[in-house]
């Protein structure tokens, strides 16, 4: 309990301290050691409770009322701050203050209502939330470490951007408070309060640079997340006044099952969908790209979007075996398919990462919607692997951008020769994202197996399988294309580029190691965190009893592959074959020792070969429109389906 209070309270205190720190040096030290403290704190919490049953912590009567009051006043303060931030809205953005007012009045209706439900246990830990704490603490901590140096460079590069670093780091730590709050709170209005803080933090961080584009994108993120917030508030109102289900406790909501809890669960799920950037709400995550890279890394990997899928996975037992559950899975499916295809079109590295994030979250939503033991297992592992690999990728792209001055994939040609360490971290990140034997594939494998047995309505399972099959193919395409660019022989002598700064490379190397280790040790993660979580759900009869163990033969083969991927490069490094180097084939017209050829009139020309972006096959705009329409219709159908 003290640890939980530490994890939630400490970042908030640090945020205050950082904001008022007198010198930049002191601030950096403070940020550094606080990030370490958070990482240690989360590790200690995980070590203290791993493999335990879900534990609920109750508080005394006085403290309980204090908490209720704190969450209500806190919510009002957040709403006021948000309203204040709306002073620069333009055009259609007038809807934002309206949404804030609507959401605040809804939540007040619930909170000020006569005798609202009593929350016995406002805090809890279970296997899943422990794993989330670990991800937030470790991955988020590493990103914060990385950000210290990055933000200094950022302001050296970006002219005309007001240096608001104290506030920046304060908001980042506030974000941690909110994230820890979300994964450890059983109190639903508390959850809502933390939820709104993440909305505010993401809005502030996205508009950090203060350019018009950044501000507009920040407002878009705010608007879309507020739609989710309104639905969340509506769900809370339902839970306050409903005759069947009167509770403010998350575990009671989940335990009530699909019969009575479906309506509030679906409303909260919409909030989850907005936060997890699923179609039709996905565009805010693309806009979030304008933020400094550590922010993108935070939003994409360990925080924000993970809050969305966290709540969806928590609610999975309610959705299991229901039609709205299948529709939820299909929303994820549509998103997965459409964004995987669109990612092929992208040349901007950060956009590729953004689309792939949305696609992977789509996959997690698919799993959550189905909600069997196996899919929950897969979803949780996906969250873990994705957080590590995506943080690694974003940070690597950020460093690359600082060194080569571009985030265009085409400009990263030959990075293996120019900056081997960065190329290596990028490659490991990508391998982790889509290739066997890395984690994503283990989860995908489980998804295939689990979807085969979905029988909510005839053909539903096959539909999900087909989406998974067709969505995986483009994934392979855009990652390999990028990897190909990284390993390509540069066409000419490239200018030397500087080394990656120490703190940045520390974060990168630790994340690289984590990508490998999480793949090797996933059975341990399974044993320590996931099994206690799913077993408890199975014991309470919320999800059907299923076998979530991986056959030892599969583990053996995966280990063999991982070993090969490790040993072959090692062997190559120890005993490199001695072959004669020669220039590439250019129809005999090559100019010696380079990738240039003698063209017409004896002029020397450089070979140009670009990646395929398949714009004739895939039309980004059309696909986005179709995806948004389909997912929008599915969302409405899901909400309507709960009433039926």
């Amino acid at each position, binding site marked *: 309990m003290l640890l939980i209070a530490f994890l939630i309270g400490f970042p908030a205190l640090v945020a205050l301290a950082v904001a008022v720190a007198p010198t930049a040096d002191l601030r950096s030290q403070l940020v550094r050691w606080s990030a370490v403290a958070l990482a240690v704190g989360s590790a200690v919490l995980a070590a203290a409770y791993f493999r335990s049953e879900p534990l609920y912590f109750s508080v005394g009567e006085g403290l309980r009322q204090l908490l209720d009051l704190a969450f209500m006043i806190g919510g009002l303060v957040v709403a006021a701050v948000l309203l204040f931030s709306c002073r620069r809205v333009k055009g259609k953005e007038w809807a934002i203050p309206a949404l804030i007012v609507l959401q605040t009045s809804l939540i007040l209706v619930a909170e000020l209502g006569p005798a609202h439900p009593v929350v016995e246990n406002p805090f809890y830990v279970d296997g899943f939330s422990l794993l989330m704490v670990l991800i937030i603490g470790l991955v988020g901590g590493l990103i914060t470490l990385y950000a210290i140096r990055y933000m200094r460079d950022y302001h050296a590069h970006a002219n005309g951007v007001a240096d608001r670093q104290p506030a920046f780091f304060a908001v980042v730590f506030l974000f941690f408070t909110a994230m820890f709050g979300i994964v450890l709170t059983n109190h639903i209005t508390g959850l809502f309060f933390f939820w709104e803080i993440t909305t505010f933090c993401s809005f502030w961080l996205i508009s950090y640079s203060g350019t018009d584009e950044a501000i507009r994108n920040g407002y878009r993120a705010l608007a879309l997340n507020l739609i989710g917030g309104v639905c969340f508030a509506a769900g809370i109102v339902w839970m306050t006044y409903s005759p069947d289900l009167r509770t403010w406790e998350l575990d009671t909501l989940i335990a009530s099952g699909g019969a009575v809890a479906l309506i509030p669960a679906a409303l909260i799920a919409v909030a989850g969908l907005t936060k997890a950037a699923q179609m039709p709400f996905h565009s805010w995550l693309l806009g979030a790209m304008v933020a400094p890279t550590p922010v993108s890394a935070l939003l994409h990997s360990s925080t924000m979007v993970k809050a969305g899928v966290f709540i969806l996975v928590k609610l999975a037992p309610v959705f299991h075996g229901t039609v709205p559950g299948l529709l939820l899975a299909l929303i994820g499916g549509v998103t997965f398919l459409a964004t995987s295809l669109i990612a092929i079109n992208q040349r901007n590295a950060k956009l590729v990462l953004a689309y792939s994030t949305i696609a992977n979250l789509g996959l997690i939503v698919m799993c959550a919607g189905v909600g069997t033991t196996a899919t929950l297992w897969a979803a949780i592992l996906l969250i873990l692997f994705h957080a590590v690999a995506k943080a690694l990728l974003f940070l690597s792209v950020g460093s690359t951008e600082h060194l080569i001055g571009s985030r265009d994939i085409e400009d990263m040609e030959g990075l293996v020769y120019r900056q081997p360490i960065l190329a290596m971290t990028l490659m490991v990140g990508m391998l982790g994202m889509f290739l066997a034997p890395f984690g994503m594939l283990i989860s995908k494998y489980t998804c295939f197996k689990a979807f085969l047995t979905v029988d909510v309505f005839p053909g539903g399972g096959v539909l999900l399988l087909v989406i998974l099959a067709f969505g995986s193919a483009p994934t392979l395409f855009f990652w390999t294309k990028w990897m190909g660019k990284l390993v390509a022989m540069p066409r000419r002598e490239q200018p030397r580029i500087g080394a990656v700064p120490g703190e940045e490379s520390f974060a990168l190397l630790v994340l690289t190691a984590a990508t490998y280790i999480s793949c090797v040790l996933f059975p341990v993660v399974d044993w320590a965190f996931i099994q206690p979580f799913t077993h408890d759900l199975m014991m309470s009869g919320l999800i059907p009893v299923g076998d979530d163990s991986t056959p030892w033969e599969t583990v053996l083969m995966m280990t063999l592959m991982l070993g090969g991927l490790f040993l072959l490069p090692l062997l190559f490094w120890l005993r490199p074959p001695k072959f*004669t180097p*020669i*220039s590439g*084939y250019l*129809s*005999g*017209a*090559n100019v010696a020792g380079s990738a240039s050829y*003698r063209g017409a009139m004896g002029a020397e020309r450089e070979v140009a070969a670009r990646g395929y972006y398949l714009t004739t096959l895939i039309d980004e705009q059309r696909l986005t429109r179709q995806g948004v329409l389909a997912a929008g219709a599915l969302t409405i159908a899901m909400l309507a389906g709960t009433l039926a």
Partner: protein
Amino acid sequence: MSFLKKSPWILHYAATSCNGCDIEVLACLTPLYDVERFGIINTGNPKHADILMVTGSVNEESRKVLENLYAQMPDPKAVIAIGACALSGGIFRDAYNVYAGIDQVIPVDVYVPGCAARPESIIDGVVQALGILEERGKQRKRQRKVALS
């Protein structure tokens, strides 16, 4: 036994020829002559080729290409000059822009005369080149052993 003899892959380069000899080279691939019987394949890629067949007279433009192609062929390799122009410059021998035979540019192992050279004699030329190729293969093997020890 060397497998070089069993699977000679060919690169055919026309250094400004009149295409007479080229047509005869391609004729070797047709069902009538079917050189694939002997494992001969026209690769069109110097990096995969064992035998370079050159037709036509070399001029300053095609010289560099020819040199490049020859350089990109991995050892052991052999060169066949096909047709009068490749042998000696042919009727263009005295032209200001033409080399008198491709052996002035790269080393040639087998000369196949004719204008145009007949498919039979081209195939015969390849068979002769195989002997040379095998000899070079053995040499190369010895060289590698020496380099290793």
